[in-house]
């Protein structure tokens, strides 16, 4: 098993607040590593540092052995990092098909071509249509993203991230806002995708976390207080108190 992501001593402060405090963590290939913790613990801050939207105050990030701490966000993507957003972030004025098509196109390259016609790039559209047909979004291909329901947007987010064929996928609350059925579907989709890529999963839906995660790290006040398998975490009294409470346990 090779190491896809390695974070060492990552620190991020906002003024007086240390949002991530010497966080170290690894994700192995093929692994789904869940990151849980109370609201405001610094999970999204961590994700944003990994994907390059925030510059860490200290620490290093390695992707598949390469130091990416100082790379631009898009360069990290080119090296195999994918992400979804906690609040969906899509191209609202385009159709579902165009959104996904664009993701495929970006990966395929030739993006500086001024004199071709995207509509005629078969390789893009074949892949796009095939990918859509496999999901519940198939019949919605021609709908503008602005008109999608919340759950549909979440699915599209994931499809677009996967279209890039990343080594590592950062998922910031993929289940948030999904209904029960849709959550089930999402869990299945993620489980199916895990063979191709490792994932760092931030999620408050414990059902999903326990169903998917190989390992779980618990972040509280910017520090990792526990790492372990699902059962270990579930049983950890500190985690129960800081995070799980009685309802879920």
């Amino acid at each position, binding site marked *: 098993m090779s190491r896809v992501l390695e974070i060492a001593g990552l620190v991020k402060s906002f003024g007086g607040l240390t949002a991530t405090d010497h966080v170290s963590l690894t994700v192995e290939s093929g692994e789904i590593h869940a990151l849980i913790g109370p609201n*405001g613990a610094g999970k999204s801050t961590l994700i944003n540092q990994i994907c390059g939207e925030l510059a860490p105050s200290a620490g290093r990030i390695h992707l598949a052995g390469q130091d990416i701490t100082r790379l631009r966000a898009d360069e990290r993507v080119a090296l195999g990092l994918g992400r979804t957003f906690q609040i969906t972030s899509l191209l609202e004025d385009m159709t579902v098909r165009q959104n996904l098509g664009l993701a495929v196109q970006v990966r395929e390259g030739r993006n500086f071509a001024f004199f071709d016609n995207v509509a005629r790039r078969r390789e893009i559209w074949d892949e796009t249509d095939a990918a859509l047909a496999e999901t519940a979004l198939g019949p919605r291909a021609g709908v503008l993203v602005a008109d999608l329901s919340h759950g549909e947007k979440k699915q599209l987010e994931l499809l677009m991230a996967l279209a890039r064929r990343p080594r590592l996928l950062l998922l910031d609350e993929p289940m*948030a806002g999904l209904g029960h059925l849709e959550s089930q579907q999402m869990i299945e989709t993620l489980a199916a995708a895990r063979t191709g890529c490792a994932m760092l999963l931030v999620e408050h839906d414990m059902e999903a976390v326990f169903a998917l995660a190989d390992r779980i790290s618990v972040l509280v006040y910017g520090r990792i207080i526990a790492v372990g398998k699902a059962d270990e975490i579930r049983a950890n009294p500190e985690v129960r108190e800081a995070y799980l409470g009685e309802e879920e346990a």
Partner: protein
Amino acid sequence: MLTVHALEAAYGASQALFGVSFDIRDGEVVTLMGRNGMGKTTTVRAIMGQLPLRGGRVEFDGRPISGLPPEKVARLGFGLVPEGRQIFPTLTVRENLVATAAHRLKTPNPWTLNRIYELFPRLNERARQMAGTLSGGEQQMLAVGRALMTNPRLLILDEATEGLAPVIRAEIWHVVERLKAEGQSILLIDKTFSVLKRLADRHFILEKGRTVWSGSSADLVNDHDRVQAWVGV
């Protein structure tokens, strides 16, 4: 208190509601259930006057309120925690809470800044931070606090626990329970089926913009198969 009858509404050309009917009595907790995209949020928007009605009526205390602008509706005593939080990012946490605060209906024991801070200590810690930089869950707490600060007669929670940690979620349910005990009417939209079943008095299920089922929590259990088909639980 609130009666919604045969509501129809559309986004531009595409119709989203085809006949939603339900009602809430004083002091009651009522849920709207249904899968993603079935029209729950749209129903709320239509009631609040944020979306023009194509048909149907909305009555509050027996008075028709269809066609009123949102601010008039809100002033009647609707407190909205909208889907997706929609806090004001360029205001501080404290400003978010006080900017729209009101105590129009002179209810006893009104919500104050202090009571909100007691409820969500996290917000107190972050009082002077710009709301746009809050974590997702903190924003959700803020949205709930903001709605409570208007001291509403009917509280509408549209996915108010989305993105909250289990402990906080439990905390919110405790609050709802307490509010219910105090006689607050609440319209709940959420996916935590087990909790809804426990907390709410009556339930309405939406399917493709129509009310297809209604009943008490007991009915919910008895009619499990049909409910399962619509809601997936």
